[in-house]
């Protein structure tokens, strides 16, 4: 096994992206993702790639659009307010079927919000990053190791399905250090015959485009894309299950809040409460299969998030009314404590015991 090193989440992610073959990074400073761009500025040139600080997040995502159109692995990173600005370019990438990786190291919102960790961009990432009918694949790491592993995977997913992939992290994961094993660098990258690299008289000209003035043609592209999305839903749902098999109560939490939830689950188990945890790894496609199966066995579900209640809507859709779905969250950059999360579990346990439901 390769040696473990101690790295900040932002830096480990950046290093893993380079090892995944990303040679084009376009950024713009914003807390709490700045170390990511700084790391790229230091390393990308030495790796034979391009680091460029764009004039805005809007320009940065459009530079990704250009580099990706040229067939290269390209990435941009930002935090919540900056992701809003990238929404336009992400929509164009989806419309032009361009791969690319977007990192959101989330902070509290709305507006300028704060700079402390948050998960309040769940809706933005999974529902409407930009205008139009489209999805991103959204991966939610919960450790520094996963920051590296998921970004490494993200580039493959993006190329395989020709669509943008987002890593939805947060300020805590970006700023913290943990031991991490870095992946071996990729040496072979997929061919991209659709890329605009100059036709050299050897093929018809390639066009990267999202404009279809005939509604029938535009609808056809939408239908094709959603057929692809169905294949992704079937093949790419990922979730981690912890102590779920005998659980009366299943906690659902992703990213940073899943770590707190896991601590709370352990404490609850010590008190004899049968509780488990499902941690969605893919937020889109949402792991409806894992959560649906849990809803068949458990008596109640508790969703824990660092926002006012966003993923809970997907959980309720997956549970489909079979068992009650409660929500506990903290917002504005506050990380919920294991103690208060345990209290939320205990409230549900008490109501189940009291036969209140």
């Amino acid at each position, binding site marked *: 096994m390769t040696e*473990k*090193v*101690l790295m900040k989440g932002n830096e480990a992610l950046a290093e893993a992206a380079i090892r995944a073959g990303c040679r084009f990074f376009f950024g713009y400073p914003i*807390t*709490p993702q700045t170390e990511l761009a700084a790391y790229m500025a230091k390393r990308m040139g030495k790796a034979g790639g391009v680091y460029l600080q764009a004039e805005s997040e809007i320009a940065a995502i459009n530079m990704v659009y250009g580099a990706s159109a040229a067939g290269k692995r390209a990435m941009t990173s930002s935090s919540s307010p900056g992701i809003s600005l990238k929404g336009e370019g992400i929509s164009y990438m989806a419309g032009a079927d361009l791969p690319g990786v977007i990192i959101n190291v989330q902070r509290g919102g709305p507006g300028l919000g704060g*700079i*402390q960790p948050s998960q309040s961009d769940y809706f933005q990432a999974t529902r409407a990053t930009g205008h139009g009918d489209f999805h991103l694949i959204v991966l939610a790491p919960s450790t520094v190791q996963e920051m590296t592993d998921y970004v490494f995977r993200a580039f493959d997913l993006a190329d395989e399905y020709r669509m943008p992939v987002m890593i939805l992290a947060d*300020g*805590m994961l970006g*700023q*913290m*250090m*943990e*031991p991490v094993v870095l992946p071996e660098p990729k040496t072979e990258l997929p061919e991209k015959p659709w890329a605009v690299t100059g036709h050299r008289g050897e093929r018809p000209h390639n066009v990267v485009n999202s404009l279809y003035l005939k509604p029938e043609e535009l609808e056809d592209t939408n239908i094709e894309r959603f057929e692809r999305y169905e294949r992704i839903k079937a093949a790419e749902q990922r979730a981690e299950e912890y102590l779920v098999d005998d659980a009366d109560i299943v906690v659902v939490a992703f990213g940073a809040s899943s*770590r*707190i939830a*896991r*601590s709370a689950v*352990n404490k609850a188990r010590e008190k004899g409460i049968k509780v488990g945890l499902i941690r969605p790894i893919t937020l889109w496609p949402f792991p409806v299969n894992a959560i649906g199966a849990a809803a068949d066995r458990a008596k109640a579900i508790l969703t824990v998030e660092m926002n006012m209640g966003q993923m809970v809507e997907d959980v309720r859709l997956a549970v489909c009314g079979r068992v009650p779905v409660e929500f506990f969250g903290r917002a504005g950059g506050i*990380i919920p*404590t*294991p103690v208060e999360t345990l209290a939320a579990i205990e409230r549900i346990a008490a109501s189940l015991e009291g036969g209140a439901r």
Partner: protein
Amino acid sequence: MAPTVNILLAGFGGQGILFAGKLIAYAGLIEKRELSWLPSYGPEMRGGTANCSVCLSDEPIGSPLVLEPDVLVAMNQPSLDKFADAVVPGGKIIVDSTMCQRLPERDDVDIFPVPSTQLAEDNGLKGLASVILVGKLLREIGFCDPRALDEAIAKSVPPKKAHLLPKNRKAFEIGMLNEDGESVPVCSLPDDWAVE
């Protein structure tokens, strides 16, 4: 096997709080333990309080944010006042007593005042008060083998500042040998331990 320990280090920006946390984290890495290091970040760091959560364990770390520390290392009065009550009963508080005049009035925790800023000044180790406190911390709770911490120091001092390595080691030794607080050391310097 060393126990799980949740450490909170707090002080002014520039006192070496994050560096001290890094030393502890690296020691954990060297001993192949589970660990996390989480700094406070943002404008509050600029001239304000800086703090840093470090968790060492043999189980995967849940929340890396230490709200109820087993050990508090406080390097100024506002940090001590802010976090002293959060320390778990039976926990320990290590205080830079050069910077803190008022000690917490708790009898359910062990409090170890060390005049680390003064000690650093007296020994030509300006800026290394936090490393002295790491030495004291190791003496009092033995969270790792001292050799691991020595290696951590070697890893953490950047090559550009290699000349500071002996000073860091000396600061650590001063902390390790500090007997204030009447507690029995849980570890002692290994035979092959040498300063400079």
